[in-house]
């Protein structure tokens, strides 16, 4: 809402105030502003009279003008086509500054001295949307009675200052100058004055010309008055300036008056060409697929949720949003039917959403003061009489179901201070109420009357907020709440995620955060056993249309970003969610997903870098599961593989026989580069009960080491042998490691040799050679038997 100082001053005295200071004070009443500026920033302009104007002998368009600027007559060379002797003009004297920081200097034009410049309106820096073509093409011609020598900007009213407020959604009342006047009045303790509405009427009554019928419940109030024989012409300067300051383009005096009254009262009006409208004025819901052409020339297709004003034949106005083309006020319109109405806010909001937003609809959506409807229509009649020469008909068509009573809120001083945490004295509370224009009865408890203009003040807390504003929130002194002492807690999943992050950081992975939304093309990639997609009805783009069910693709996108910048060594992870639905249930499953590519650990000048591979990712996952306390409970299986991972370089991760995720290389069909990924369900991992850590004494007794190598078929998974070794080794076999895998010379081409280092130890005694050897031989025997393996000769 743009508020002009000159405009506002009609309703509350502000011309003695610093407008910047006023803007700041408004901020502390909850009304932030975007900008504060003058209509024109030009300085050093005076009104001059062209005393003499002759063509420049050496130019085809320049004129040599002698211009009287009050104190002196100076020579100015001017190129405007419309310059001529006798004109009153705007003169930028030497030293004047025009918008764009242009300083006027003494100059020579085609050999002749020029002491200033005669200006067009455009040169004053006005937004071109408010200017007519002639305002841009030629110098501005001031009225002939303009006082020579005076400040031209002031004379034109362009020294007006304008604050552009960003209103909060609740303050419907501030979408009017009167509302602004009350707000400013409350801050500065000043009275608000209402505009003149009294006008002489002719004997003809509006009911002789029009009849009103309201056939919908969504129009609580509809008033109609009429003005005859208006003269449509250009608006006076002051009216044009005020509309311009308010961001509205001047059309003609009649249309401008309807906008002007809306700005004053916040009550939108609609002017119909009474003759085009015909007798009947019907307010009703539109019919299914009913068509009408709005005054912007567009054909609109409506439905029963839209409200229209209709005559006998057709809809002629889209209620609260925009008028119809057929009944538009045009140059030759003589008689005007004025509508001032309130329509249901929700209905208007819906219509505005699917058709278009207008100054009127934005006011209807937020709500209108029912006490202003009549004032606004009377004001319009007054102005049409005064500025368009109209004859105002007596009477008013009325449909009105609204209550005009003030709201009553009863409140105590204690409640006010309890909510604000302050100790506002009684007299200050009373003073605040009176400044706000709220009267009250009683003496703590108070019964406060809230005028209908304040649609936003309905309950005690609303009122307390208003009192706080006027008294000043800066006076609140902070303290900590007096509450029960207790330790704060985290949810189990929050702790799980924290632990996950700690581990992943520890093994060198950078945490990333990526977008949850992805495309329908990618949503099913890398996903295992998940439900249906959760798809947006109104996405911004196809790339972000559906919630992801796996985070692997997002991490690959992060890899691609780095790859294109020649950073191929990447170790990243994300803790986030998969989103899917099973039947009607929306599921958000917490995941941890990682991606490794390129070098994991290296010394740049050495050749033995550790490059990310399957076993590194497997180790990271294994370490993570151990960190969670799940050692001995997980397995890596080669069934249930993820179809988007390399079939020979991936596995699924099982804990307690439940698949919790998978790991491996990204399938070469999906990505050219060797990328290793893992994805685990944190929800599933969290569901596994883990016992408390318990101290176990470290054995004091010596260990016995034994090495053994087996030759097996090349496709035998090493884990098979490992399992047999562990099972046979039993309690005394404390550690088994693979220390060599060999294929090649001395081993058949379809075989491989795997070498194991075994460690035996007892918790309570020194082991005897004999018993270790016994177990060792049993291990060899079992492996040979169960894994079809041969002991490899030393």
């Amino acid at each position: 809402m743009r508020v002009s100082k000159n405009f506002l001053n009609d309703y509350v005295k502000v011309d003695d105030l610093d407008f910047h200071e006023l803007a700041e004070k408004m901020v502390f009443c909850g009304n932030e502003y975007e900008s504060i500026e003058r209509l024109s920033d030009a300085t050093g302009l005076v009104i001059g009279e062209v005393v003499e104007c002759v063509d420049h002998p050496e130019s085809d368009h320049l004129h040599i003008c002698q211009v009287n600027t009050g104190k002196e007559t100076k020579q100015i060379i001017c190129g405007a086509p419309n310059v001529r002797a006798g004109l009153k003009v705007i003169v930028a004297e030497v030293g004047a500054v025009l918008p764009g920081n242009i300083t006027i200097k003494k100059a020579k034009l085609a050999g002749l001295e020029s002491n200033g410049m005669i200006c067009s309106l455009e040169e004053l820096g006005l937004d071109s949307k408010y200017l007519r073509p002639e305002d841009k093409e030629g110098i501005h011609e001031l009225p002939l009675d303009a006082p020579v020598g005076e400040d031209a900007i002031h004379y034109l009213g362009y020294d007006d200052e304008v604050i552009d407020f960003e209103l909060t959604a609740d303050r419907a009342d501030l979408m009017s100058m009167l509302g602004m006047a009350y707000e400013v009045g409350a801050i500065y303790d000043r009275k608000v004055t209402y505009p003149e509405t009294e006008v002489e009427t002719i004997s003809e009554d509006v009911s002789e010309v029009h009849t009103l019928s309201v056939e919908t419940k969504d129009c609580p109030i509809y008033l109609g008055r009429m003005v005859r024989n208006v003269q449509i012409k250009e608006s006076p300067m002051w009216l044009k300036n005020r509309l311009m300051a308010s961001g509205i383009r001047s059309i003609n005096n009649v249309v401008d008056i309807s906008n002007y009254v809306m700005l004053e009262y916040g009550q939108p009006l609609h002017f119909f060409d009474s003759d085009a409208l015909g007798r009947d004025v019907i307010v009703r819901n539109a019919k299914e697929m009913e068509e009408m052409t709005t005054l912007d020339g567009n054909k609109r297709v409506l439905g029963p949720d839209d409200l229209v004003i209709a005559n006998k034949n057709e809809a002629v106005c889209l209620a609260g949003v925009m008028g119809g083309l057929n009944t538009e006020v045009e140059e030759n319109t003589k008689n005007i039917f004025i509508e001032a109405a309130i329509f249901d806010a929700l209905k208007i909001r819906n219509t505005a959403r699917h058709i278009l937003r207008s100054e009127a609809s934005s006011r209807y959506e937020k709500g209108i003061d029912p006490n202003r409807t009549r004032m606004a229509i009377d004001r319009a009649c007054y102005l049409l009489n005064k500025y368009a020469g109209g004859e105002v008909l007596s009477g008013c068509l009325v449909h009105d179901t609204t209550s005009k009573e003030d709201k009553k809120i009863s409140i105590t001083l204690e409640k006010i201070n309890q909510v604000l945490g302050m100790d506002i004295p009684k007299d200050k509370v009373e003073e605040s109420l009176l400044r706000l224009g709220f009267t009250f009865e009683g003496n703590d408890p108070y019964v406060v009357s809230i005028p209908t203009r304040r649609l936003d003040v309905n309950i005690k807390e609303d009122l307390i907020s208003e009192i706080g504003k006027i008294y000043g929130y800066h006076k609140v002194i902070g303290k900590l709440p007096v509450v029960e002492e207790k330790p704060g807690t985290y949810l189990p999943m929050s702790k799980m995620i924290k632990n996950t992050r700690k581990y992943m950081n520890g093994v060198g992975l950078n945490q990333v955060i990526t977008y949850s939304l992805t495309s329908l093309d990618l949503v099913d990639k890398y996903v295992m056993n998940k439900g249906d997609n959760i798809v947006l009805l109104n996405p911004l783009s196809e790339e972000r249309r559906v919630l992801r069910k796996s985070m692997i693709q997002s991490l690959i996108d992060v890899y691609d970003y780095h790859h294109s910048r020649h950073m191929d060594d990447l170790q990243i992870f994300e803790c986030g969610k998969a989103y899917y639905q099973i039947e009607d249930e929306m599921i958000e499953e917490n995941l941890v997903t990682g991606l490794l590519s390129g070098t994991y650990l290296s010394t740049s000048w050495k050749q033995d870098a550790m490059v990310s591979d399957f076993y590194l990712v497997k180790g990271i996952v294994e370490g993570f599961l151990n960190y969670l306390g799940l050692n001995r409970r997980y397995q890596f299986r080669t069934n249930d593989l993820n179809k988007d991972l390399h079939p020979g370089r991936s596995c699924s991760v099982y804990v307690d026989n439940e698949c919790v995720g998978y790991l491996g290389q990204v399938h070469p069909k999906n990505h050219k580069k060797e990328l290793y990924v893992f994805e685990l369900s944190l929800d599933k991992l969290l569901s596994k009960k883990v016992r408390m850590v318990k101290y176990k004494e470290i054995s004091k007794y010596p260990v016995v080491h034994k090495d053994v190598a087996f030759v097996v078929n090349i496709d035998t998974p090493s884990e098979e042998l490992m399992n047999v070794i562990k099972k046979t080794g039993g309690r005394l076999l404390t550690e088994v490691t693979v220390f060599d895998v060999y294929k090649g010379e001395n081993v058949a081409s379809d075989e491989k040799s795997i070498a194991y280092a075994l460690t035996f130890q007892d918790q309570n005694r020194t082991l005897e050679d004999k018993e270790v050897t016994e177990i060792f031989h049993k291990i060899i025997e079992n492996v040979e038997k169960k894994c079809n393996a041969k002991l490899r000769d030393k």
Partner: protein
Amino acid sequence: MNEKINSLKQEVEQKLKSVSTMKELNEVKTFYLGKKGPISALSSMMKDLSVEEKREFGSALNKLKQEVNLMMEEVRIRLEEEELNRRLEKEKIDVTLPSTSVHFGSVHPLTQVIDEIEELFVSMGYDVVEGPEVETDLYNFEKLNLPKGHPARDAQDSFYITEELLLRTQTSPVQARTMDANTEKTPIRVICPGKVYRRDDDDATHSHQFTQIEGLVIDKDISLADLKGTLEVFARKVFGEDREIRLRPSFFPFTEPSLEVDVSCMKCGGKGCSVCKGTGWIEILGSGMVHPNVLRACGYDPEKYTGFAFGIGPERVAMLKYGISDIRAFYTNDKRFLEDFNRVKGSEE
């Protein structure tokens, strides 16, 4: 006899002088101290001596043994030292060559901010709670005093899944869920961090996905002073000890009074600079007293309970704290950006 002993001693001394390796030393040692060595030979001569002579010769011989041992020990130490020095010389490397890329994974700057804020509030007895990102219209809007058609819904353009289901536009629904879930309707102190979504095109200051941390306190006699005191603690912890905050009235449907909170500029301390656009203050969060309609919708009696709520934007906090100018940086995850934050944070200068 003593002559023999002396000459033997001298002989050993001579021999040891030329010893330059451990091996030679051992040879000398084995030769002289061995069972068939000259010292042994001397002692075997003892049997022919008188008791008196035996004692004298015996002690001289013992002395010789001790001296020889000592001499050999000295040589051993000398040799070991020499060997160690040779080894050190041999093992010398160029310590100025670049190191191995040991890497501690980085915590995303948003997570750092969220962690810091969570820890602060947990230390003040708040519970960290969470709620779904796919949220119902009921919890995202209606229970928060934003009925269908409320103009304030415009400020939060939403991604809808069905007419009743959307991606939450704020973490405030977790407030309502927490109050609803508390069947005993006892006091509440929670913060709710999480992802939220708005139907905005991504640019330097807008992101269709971002994070929020909601705070909620419900108890008897909670006032605006409690809100201000709490947020002062927050502002000073996160932005520095010297920060002041100020409250500015505003409008949020779910609080009344509603207040914007400004913090004194962390760059200039309030004098006015480019960060605070010359005002000395920076808007950091929205807050207010929980609206009675919200309390009522969630089963709390507004006559008995009052509360405050606030919503912090971790992106905004991180951007202000570290001078990040483009919100998209958080979601681009450039490793150079991430690793810049991979350190203990220094203090303000």
